[in-house]
């Protein structure tokens, strides 16, 4: 029995107002098109590349990232092996991570990346460059529909990633590439 | 329709021409208004300073003065907002409720009660409309840029109906002028700076005549215009509308 816990809960109980209604959230519909997703992603510093086929992944990656030495990916046979036990100095060396996105959100260019797709939790942000592979049919319009696609919850760890890392903390000048990935490409098949 | 005129204290003392114009404008629109001389103040300066309690006798005096009129028209959105919103501190007797419901800003009275949306008349000048915060956000007399990019409002439409008028498009449509009642002296530096920026927004965008529905804002802006000798006239909207309307 934690006395602080009891005091805080008792204080809340004593202070809170009469119960009000928890509203039902409507589905607002919206534009779930690839066009919309692409234009929003471009406006936030990301790039969309269409794969002629899923099989073209390796070739496209090689073409887009010729300088990448250490590539981590569950989708590429030649990738450097990464898992939850990979030591930090190896993770720190990753140039490019190519990970499977679950679905995209057209209103904001975000892609849902659940933990099982990450190989190691640090990979999406420790990598210098990030590519997310996405089925173009897996697009929803808004965050309402996005969360509706997670009926079992977000898992142990899950990220919506919308574009490359960025900051405007220096005089509101937008800089792409803060601490996370310097660039984000969504490879659509 | 029995209509009374409530004249804000500073208008009574320093801008009587605004109250005269209001009276004459109403008469021209077919509404002869009476000025009950027992009136004093709506109590806003005290209430906004934290002394709402001390303002209650003033509120009661206001209700007593105006309870027998169908409407109490005020050339000031600020005072009206205060009566409508903050007289809730009084016991809500039938008289109090009546006065709160029927104390109305001049422009709202013209457009919403009399249903007059346009006026004949000419005013061939570049006019900068200053939206008072109480009128715009408090009384919903005009669209707020926080909610929509569409510029529209009751006074805007009335002015726009005058021949030859050109309304200024400002850089910041509805930023506060910085008067804020006692704020103008308790935070004099910020108040002065806000007024300066507002006046210069008008200057930059070509305003020749600065107008609005609240003499408090205009008094503050006029003070700055005169101090900096800016090429602008400051007139309350009642003065403009009254001047363009000949006796019918």
């Amino acid at each position, binding site marked *: 029995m934690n006395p602080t816990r009891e005091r805080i809960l008792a*204080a809340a109980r004593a*202070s*809170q107002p009469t*119960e*009000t209604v*928890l*509203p039902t*959230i409507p589905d*607002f519909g919206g534009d779930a098109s690839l066009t919309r997703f692409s234009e929003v992603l471009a406006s*936030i510093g990301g790039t969309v590349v269409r794969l002629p086929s899923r099989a073209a992944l390796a070739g496209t990656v090689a073409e887009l990232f010729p300088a990448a030495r250490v590539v981590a990916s569950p989708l590429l046979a030649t990738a450097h092996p990464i898992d939850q036990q990979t030591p930090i*100095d190896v993770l*720190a060396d990753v140039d490019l991570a190519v990970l499977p996105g679950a679905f995209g959100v057209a209103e904001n260019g975000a892609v849902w990346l659940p933990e099982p797709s990450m190989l190691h*939790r640090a990979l*999406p942000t*420790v990598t210098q460059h990030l590519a997310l592979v996405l089925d173009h049919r897996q697009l929803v319009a808004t*965050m309402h529909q996005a969360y509706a696609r997670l009926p079992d919850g977000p898992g142990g*760890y*899950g*990220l*919506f*990633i*919308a574009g490359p890392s*960025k*900051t405007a*903390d*220096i*005089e*509101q*000048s937008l800089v792409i*590439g*803060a*601490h*996370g990935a310097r660039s984000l490409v969504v490879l659509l098949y | 329709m029995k209509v009374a005129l409530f004249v804000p204290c500073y208008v009574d*003392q*320093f801008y*009587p021409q605004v109250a005269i114009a209001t009276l004459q404008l109403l008469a021209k629109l077919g509404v002869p208004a009476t*000025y009950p001389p027992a009136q*004093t103040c709506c109590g806003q300066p005290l*209430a*906004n300073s*934290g002394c709402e*309690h*001390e303002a209650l006798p003033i509120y009661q005096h206001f209700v007593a003065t105006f309870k027998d009129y169908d409407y109490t028209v005020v050339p000031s959105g600020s005072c009206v907002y205060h009566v409508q919103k903050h007289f809730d501190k009084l016991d809500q007797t039938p008289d109090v409720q009546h006065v709160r419901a029927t104390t109305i800003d001049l422009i709202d009275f013209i457009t919403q009660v009399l249903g007059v949306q346009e006026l004949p008349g000419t005013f061939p000048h570049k006019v900068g409309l200053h939206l008072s*915060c109480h009128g715009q*956000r*408090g009384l919903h007399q005009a669209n707020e840029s926080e909610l929509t*990019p569409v510029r529209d409002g009751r006074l805007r439409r009335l002015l726009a109906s005058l021949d030859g008028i050109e309304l200024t498009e400002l850089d*910041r449509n509805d930023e*506060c002028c910085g008067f804020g009642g*006692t*704020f103008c002296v308790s935070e*004099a*530096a*910020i108040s*002065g700076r806000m*007024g*300066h*920026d507002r006046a210069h927004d008008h200057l930059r965008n070509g305003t020749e005549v600065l107008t609005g529905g609240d003499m408090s804002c205009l*008094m503050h802006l*006029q003070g700055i215009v005169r101090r900096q000798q800016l090429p602008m006239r400051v007139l309350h909207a009642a003065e403009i509308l009254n001047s363009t309307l000949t006796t019918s």
Partner: protein
Amino acid sequence: MSYLTHAGRAEAFVLDHERTSWHDETLWFVRQKRDRAVYAVPEFQELRELASQIKNHTLSRLDHYLAQFEAAALANGVQVHWAADAAEHNDLVLRIVRQHGATRVVKSKSMLTEECHLNPHLLAHGIEVIDTDLGERIIQLRDEPPSHLVLPAIHLKKEDVGETFHRHLGTAQGLTDPQQLAEAARQHLRPKFLAGEVALTGVNFAIAETGSVVVCTNEGNADLGVSLAPVHIASMGIEKLLPRLQDLGVFTRLLARSATGQPVTTYTAHYTKPAPGREMHVIIVDNGRTQQLGRPDFRASLKCIRCGACMNTCPVYRRSGGHSYDFTVPGPIGSILSPNIDLKKHSTLPFASTLCGSCTDVCPVKIDIHTQLYKWRQIVAEANHLPTAKKLGLKFMGRLLASPAAFKLSGQLARRGLRLLPHALSHHPGANAWAIARELPEPPKQSFRDWYAQQPSPTA
């Protein structure tokens, strides 16, 4: 003018006319970005109403949702702690850090830890704590508090940042290019992330249903820190709760648009379970929140999602800067949160406003900020914290304004005085604060009531 009041500090800020213009324009630019984002979402006003209702409901069943959150988190293997105040919070953090023999802590943005003054506490006990958000790192190096909820270094020009980085990171003297400065920060902070032993984060939203904590960043610094360090400590105020995962649909659509005009932050992280072999802790903090919850007029301020839109839109904040509020959270929202913590110290904050109402219009959760500012003024006056001169002046004014005869006489005297006094006296800035920036109105010969009394019988 006393430096202990907002007005005193604001006066000092505004002395630099150009810098004030720059600060004001920069924040107005952020407000405009917000506007464009809001106009583009047709249902935005509906979303605000939903968010307000969700938060109102949550606050009305706070004990229930706190318990539900804790149970879910515990079931996920998360350790849950409770802190009544800042001191307890800081001790808990220190204890957890020490339990792991750690001395290197990386921290992503958390206004709560700022409120608790956590950094000095850890430093005093030999723990290195690095703020990893770029804006926070800049002010940490300068030993300054943040001046804005979301843009902590908004008061600094790139020259200021360049000078700080030159001194602490060894960048070239005179380097001011933001891209290069940010790159320097990235290189400087990366080893800190890699060596972090404990990662501290704040919490944007805590989901009662799943026991998850949600953290939103643009830089990725929260995720980088948490995913590399063996221990994660997330500090949250009790008011951060949301009932359901689906509620995030509403809030993630409102937060970034309101804050910076982006459709969403780059990273929206959902931490629910610690990674195998690692630890995750959540510290639930009161620190005055249940007290605010008990104030019917002010409890709505607890709906705040820390977006900063109110300060971006506030014409007073833009021209006085966050430091002039002398409270962790500045601006309009800070001015209604702070009197709950220390009424006397923060007594001038509810008056640092013209009550224009713009803040209320932009608040994504519809807090009636300007109404609460007005209500706090009544409490400050009742508690006798008004400046004496103002107090006496207002009492006198009250009697005057209730009496038609006294009112009439005082008006006559004022006008006559103004007409007779030489300009240098009536407009002396020392005696007449109005006259610092403005001319007084020309005093007319007759008041309106005098004119009216002289008219032929009033039209009936």
